């Protein structure tokens, strides 16, 4: 009967706010699996397979590409034209059809690096005209650049400027024109100058207008601006210009591979230098280096060709394009220290040099040329057969699990079992640390657990199986749920030289064997 009253009391009072019921269960279940191949570490696009089935690393990249815009730099240019009543005149009544006396003049395109352009074809660019009329009468404006032509028609602006509202508020008219495909003759009136365009401006009081008084404080303005000009073809003298360039080639994204852990057998870096510009250039003060950021180590390429001065003669003008001058420089284990550099396990290859255009001056009599599709380029092809001896190559990665925690299921105690199949001819020592979210505390979950190498039998390698048991406490699980990190480090070693093959894999299956508290 006591139970009965207990029952009723429970029913009437505690059931709604009772403590959670819980019990423990022993669970064995797979939770995750992963298969890792070389292609997970390196993208397919930079991997290849040789005739023996061995992998090689092949990275082609454009180290330098100088296009016409890099070689011929044109500044945005603004030119002001106009008319003001000349002294001693103070005021003048002008009739309809009165022409303002404005003489033709030259405009000078500003270039960088003392470049003298004789002629060019515009690839893109805009010309903007801002016309200001301070008079209370309409003005007819005609502006012509005779040697800026498109299909033999000179560039012309014809506009009637509206009258000013009053003497203090002039009318402003703005027009923009696309200059694509226009031909520029920049040789001036005599055909011997550079960077010069003739222009003529005509302003008349509109014939249909009335007479109006102009004073010496009134200025009719015509401002012209060239913006973002670039050429698809240019001829002239491109100056004696020094360009400093640098570039880098990222080899991998791991910032955890230490140096001195890989001994490569062979490697090559082929530099293809191409000069598509009708001007000589010289490469000097070149510096090529490999960098291991983790160990803060760098080594410089040692090769007579690239450490000296490299002269590349001008391209040949074929009329509509250039025939580039090319040169190939091959760096390999026999003529350079490239193997030593790559054994640093570098994460990037860097290069820097000076490029001097027309090192001997204006030897072409101002007939340097450039086509938009041809520039100066250096292509680098890195070829590394993945045949190596591996000594304590360390790769680290961190994992953060983003899983929702449930109040109904709690980890009590147990193990995570890793079942590993390894077909790589590499022994791997595995270390796993749990880093708490504050990054100040860590727990070593496993230390130097061995994943056995496959067993080499001639050319074949039989997959080896390993089992690693990782004890995990409830505190560890809480740390992971609270944003902790798993820091995983694998240290790879080979017995002698190995050849990496695309079919090699590591399969890992994670299984929990744990006591779990289930709550209701």
């Amino acid at each position: 009967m006591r139970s009965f009253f207990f029952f009723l009391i429970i029913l009437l009072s505690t059931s709604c706010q009772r403590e959670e019921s819980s019990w423990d269960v022993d669970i064995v279940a797979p939770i995750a699996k992963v298969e890792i191949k070389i292609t997970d570490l390196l993208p397919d696009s930079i991997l290849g397979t040789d005739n023996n089935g061995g992998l090689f690393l092949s990275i082609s990249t454009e180290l330098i590409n100088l296009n016409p815009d890099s070689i011929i730099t044109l500044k945005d240019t603004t030119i002001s034209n106009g008319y003001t009543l000349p002294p001693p005149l103070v005021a003048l009544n002008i009739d309809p059809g009165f022409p303002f006396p404005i003489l033709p003049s030259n405009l000078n395109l500003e270039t960088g690096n003392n470049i003298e352009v004789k002629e060019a074809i515009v690839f893109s660019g805009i010309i903007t005209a801002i016309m200001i009329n301070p008079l209370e009468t309409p003005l007819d404006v005609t502006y012509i650049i005779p040697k800026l032509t498109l299909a033999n028609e000179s560039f012309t602006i014809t506009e009637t400027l509206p009258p000013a509202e009053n003497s203090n508020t002039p009318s402003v008219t703005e027009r923009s024109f696309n200059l694509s495909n226009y031909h520029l003759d920049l040789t001036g009136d005599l055909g011997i100058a550079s960077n010069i365009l003739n222009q003529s401006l005509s302003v008349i009081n509109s014939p249909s207008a009335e007479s109006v008084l102009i004073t010496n404080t009134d200025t009719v303005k015509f401002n012209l601006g060239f913006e973002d000009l670039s050429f698809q073809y240019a001829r002239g003298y491109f100056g004696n210009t020094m360009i400093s360039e640098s570039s880098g080639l990222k080899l991998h994204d791991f910032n955890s591979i230490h140096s001195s852990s890989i001994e490569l057998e062979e490697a090559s870096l082929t530099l293809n230098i191409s000069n598509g510009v009708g001007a000589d250039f010289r490469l000097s003060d070149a510096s090529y280096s490999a960098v291991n950021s983790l160990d803060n180590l760098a080594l410089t390429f040692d090769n007579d060709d690239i450490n000296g001065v490299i002269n590349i003669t001008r391209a040949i003008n074929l009329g509509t394009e250039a025939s580039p001058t090319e040169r190939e420089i091959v760096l390999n284990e026999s003529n350079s220290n490239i193997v030593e550099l790559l054994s640093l396990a570098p994460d990037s290859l860097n290069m820097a040099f000076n490029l001097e255009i027309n090192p001997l001056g204006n030897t072409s009599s101002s007939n340097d040329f450039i086509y938009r599709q041809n520039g100066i380029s250096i292509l680098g092809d890195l070829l590394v057969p993945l045949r190596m001896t591996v000594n304590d190559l360390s790769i680290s990665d961190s994992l953060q699990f983003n899983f929702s925690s449930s109040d109904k299921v709690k980890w009590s105690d147990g193990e995570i079992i890793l079942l590993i199949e390894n077909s790589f001819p590499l022994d791997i020592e595995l270390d796993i640390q749990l880093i708490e979210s504050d990054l100040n505390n860590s727990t070593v979950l496993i230390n130097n657990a061995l994943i056995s190498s496959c067993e080499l039998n001639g050319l074949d390698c039989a997959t080896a199986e390993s089992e690693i048991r990782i004890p995990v406490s409830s505190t560890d699980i809480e740390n992971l749920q609270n944003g902790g990190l798993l820091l995983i480090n694998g240290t790879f070693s080979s017995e002698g030289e190995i050849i990496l093959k695309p079919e090699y894999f590591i399969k890992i299956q994670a299984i929990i064997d744990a006591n779990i508290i289930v709550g209701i």
Partner: protein
Amino acid sequence: MIKFICEISAKRYCVTIIFIFSAINSYTQSIETWNHNGYNAFSTISLEGGYDSDGITSLLLNSFITGGFIDRETRLQSIPGDFSMRNFGARIDGNIDICFPSKLVKKDSLNLFLTYKYENEIAIDFQSDQYKLMFFGNEQFLEDTISLSNLRWNQWNLQSIGIGVYDLKSNNYITTNLYFGQHSRMRIDDGFLYTGTDGRFLHSDISGSYFNSDFNNKNRKSTTGIGLGLNGQYNVLKSNIKSDLIINVQNIGFIIWPKSNKKVSLEENYDFNGIEIRDVFSSELSIDSSATWLGIIDSNVVPTERVELLPTTISGQFRYKVNEKNSIDIVVSSRQINLWRPLFNIGWSHSLNEKLVFGMGIKYGGYGGINYKLRCVYDTQKRWTAGIYINYLQGFISSKGYGGHAGLSVRRRMNFNLEK
């Protein structure tokens, strides 16, 4: 009181394969024939709750009720035999009735009868393997098969309001009820779970079905179906002084589930050897936990509005008055609900005096086996009558007993001066 019941039900409806405290309605145990003592109106409040089982001990159930950690010993006590089925049912219900004379009812002895009832019932059929999996995990089944066959789950949550007539002379009544409810059920006809060597893989093969009136409705207090039904009671031998034969019917009718219900048949073969992680070198791993059974169920669902019969209960009670102080009751009940077997009761009542009646009995069936009951009714012979019932006694007197059920009912008689 009603609010209290609702809160209890919300607590209990959390998980599958959970033993939940509740009750078996007493109308399947015995039918009270109230004496109205000349009053022409009454109101009744009843609250009953309990569970019945042929395998779950009261110790285990009390652990659920009181909360806290359930130790291994307690769980071991309820392990079924290897091949036998175990049954568990729990129910809580409460009702408020008001009966009073009304101009709407023309016959003198007939009164207007208004009712409100809340019913919440859960039943589970399970086997040894399923119990062991639930309470001890799958480690003991390494390289072995866990039978999931014949696992059944059934759950009803009904609220109803009724209007009808009540005959004070015979205690006959009939009401028409409007129902609001939720229902879910699951059955695995055939199925197993195999745990591979060292837990390297899990393989399951399941054939069964599942229904839920509104899977997306997380608020279990709310109702998703609406229905119509009848309750009634009729004394067949009302002219007989020595005996009564009373037929009682509850919840004859239907309920309509809206399109949000889910009904699926499952024929699923499922292998699992871990979630595949493809981009292991990404800085942050995100584990997709959406590939669950619920996802499989969702993929098979076609929304359709459904009509379903209510879980009807039909009870018959024969009461024989041996003499002025003693009577014998025989009750047979049948319920149209899965997992519930016909219930047989036999009881003896003794009037200690004109105010106090004491009774005892034995039952077999329902969700459990044999159990014992006690009953005590006190009638002031004026306005008040109160009854306390312990319909399943075993669970209250022994921690190793099965089944516990108790109820409380209070009736107040009144007089209405109504000019008809």
